[in-house]
């Protein structure tokens, strides 16, 4: 069976500030099956947002893309304007990080929600209204009629993100792209919003690409997790197998560095050394500058993804890692500090 979303050797270059192009996505391959939730985890700047933007064809002007992205077998970069618009309007829903910036401030919540449903012209106004009220209650917004007439500045960040989730679901898409949907929210609201996304996704059997910098969060809502570093995916694993013996040193570092459960901080405290950007990566492994197990070979030769039980890891020394004692798996209760 072919995947619903299939990213194949994606490479994205953006025009640099002065001259030339800068690589921000090196070589990303990732599949999302129908109905499956996949987490894309990495530090800030690792290229998570650019990956989703490439999928949505929302890259900044002058961006160069190579590789292939397919949805249900159809090439997204190859779509013409009309097909692209139609695809965006009916088959994919996007939840952005900052709802306050991503919802037009001068139009009402009702305008925002109706705009999406009415686009494909399949629903009458009353059917649309029906669907919108239903979804708004589903995302936990009580007084629907009042909210529809309000403006974004009259709603809290949490409510606004619920509106965004409702909006993404109004067209009954098959795939949800969620780019750090809770990073802009406060902690208690974060948990509620995650619970809503998770529940609605499962109910509807939607596929989801869930972007976050929080491994635990990703493991909680996703079946499979891809770990991204400096524009490439270093490891892809089943969520419950992550951090076991065969994991990539970067994943292990992330796991070891996570704060105690219960006082989860907004940003990961990470591994020794400075996280590098994709364009700084030389011929070798992207993680070579920070890896505790680095060897000469790592600096000279880029490791290809190797199949391991449950996933794949891009490291020259899987065998060596295999032999070492692994950190406990995510979700097994508490980190090792």
């Amino acid at each position, binding site marked *: 069976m072919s995947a619903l979303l299939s990213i194949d050797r994606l490479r994205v270059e953006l025009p640099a500030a002065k001259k030339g192009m800068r690589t921000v996505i090196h070589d990303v391959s990732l599949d999302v099956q129908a109905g499956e939730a996949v987490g894309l985890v990495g530090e800030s700047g690792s290229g998570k947002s650019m990956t989703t933007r490439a999928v949505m064809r929302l890259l900044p002007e002058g961006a160069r893309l190579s590789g292939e992205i397919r949805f249900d077998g159809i090439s997204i970069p190859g779509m013409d304007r009309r097909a692209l618009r*139609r695809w965006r309007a009916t088959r994919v829903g996007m939840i952005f990080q900052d709802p306050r910036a991503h919802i037009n*401030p001068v139009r009402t919540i009702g305008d925002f929600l109706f705009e999406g449903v009415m686009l494909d012209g399949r629903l009458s106004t009353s059917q649309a209204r029906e669907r919108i009220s239903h979804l708004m209650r589903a995302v936990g917004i009580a007084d629907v009629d009042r909210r529809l007439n309000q*403006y974004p500045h*009259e709603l809290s960040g949490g409510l606004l993100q619920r509106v965004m989730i409702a909006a993404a679901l109004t067209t009954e898409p098959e795939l949800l792209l969620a780019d750090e949907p809770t990073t802009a929210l406060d902690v208690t609201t974060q948990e509620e919003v995650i619970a809503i996304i998770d529940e609605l996704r499962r109910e509807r059997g939607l596929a989801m690409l869930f972007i976050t910098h929080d491994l635990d969060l990703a493991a909680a809502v996703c079946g499979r997790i891809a770990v991204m570093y400096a524009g490439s995916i270093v490891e892809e694993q089943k969520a419950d197998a992550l951090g076991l013996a065969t994991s990539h040193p970067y994943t292990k570092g992330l796991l070891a560095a996570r704060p105690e459960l219960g006082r989860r901080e907004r940003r990961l405290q990470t591994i020794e050394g400075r996280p590098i950007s994709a364009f700084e990566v030389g011929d070798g492994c992207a993680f070579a500058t920070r890896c505790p197990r680095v060897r000469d070979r790592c600096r000279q030769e880029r490791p290809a993804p190797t199949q391991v039980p449950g996933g794949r890891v891009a490291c020259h020394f899987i065998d060596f890692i295999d032999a070492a004692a692994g950190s406990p798996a995510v979700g097994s209760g508490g980190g090792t500090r």
Partner: protein
Amino acid sequence: MTTLGVASVVIYGAMFIVPGDPATLLVGGSKPNPEALAAVRRQFHLDDPFWQSYLRWLSGAVRGDFGVSLVYRSPVSDLIASRALTTILLVAYAAIVIVIAGVGLGVLAAWKEKRAGVVITMATTVMMGAPTFVMAVIFVAVFATGLGWFPVFGAGSGLTDRLWHLTLPAFALAFSWIAYVAQVTRAAVRDEIRSEHVDTAHARGVPERLILRRHVLRNASGPILTVSGLTVAGLFAGTAVAEQAFGINGIGALLVESAAKQDLAIVQAISLVLVAAFVVVNMLVDLCNALLDPRAAGRAAR
């Protein structure tokens, strides 16, 4: 209102300290006799202290009575009223041209950045540097004397004839302002096109045309309206040059002429009317802005 009050004092005060003695002008002759001068001074209250004469002037002004012109020997309000229509027509004509052409070019430049944007930006940069009187000379040379499409002189009579007469002056007056409004519009629209909520609209498959209308223009309308309003308000002051260049008997020409002849009553009255027009346009702009932006309306209500 405060603006108007302050402006009235400044306008009146400025005229008060202007060098030259209007009485000399009134009596005529290069060596007037002192008695005649004193008589004229008394008649026109020229020797009163500043505040006293200011208050007398102001109390008249609020009733629409700006006194009597020393040169024309007739009420200032009549002199202005008889010329007002021409000037208002000219300003309105120029304003419409500026808003349509300026906003249109600006939006086009921002929306079709690669194709139209470069050309329009270069053109408007050149246009910005072209003052009204230069454009007046060029327009007259090309369209009036050269092609003979438009009259060279005067304001005409009857609406169509007037509009025909006012076309060249209006375009000369509008010319550099079109460029200015276009550049501000372009910047505002471009900012909005790059905003994150427009990304959302794209991601939802909203058609381009709807994005432009609902999310770009609607959101950029605030700054566009403000700059258009300021420009239109500024036209009232700029109209003098156009009127002079095309021999149109409007308020602007009257102002210049009166200033040259030191006909203070007229200069003061026209200055005040211009400031009032400016203030009124600004108020309208603020009002529209409040209506356009729900956040501003919310703040005002609170």
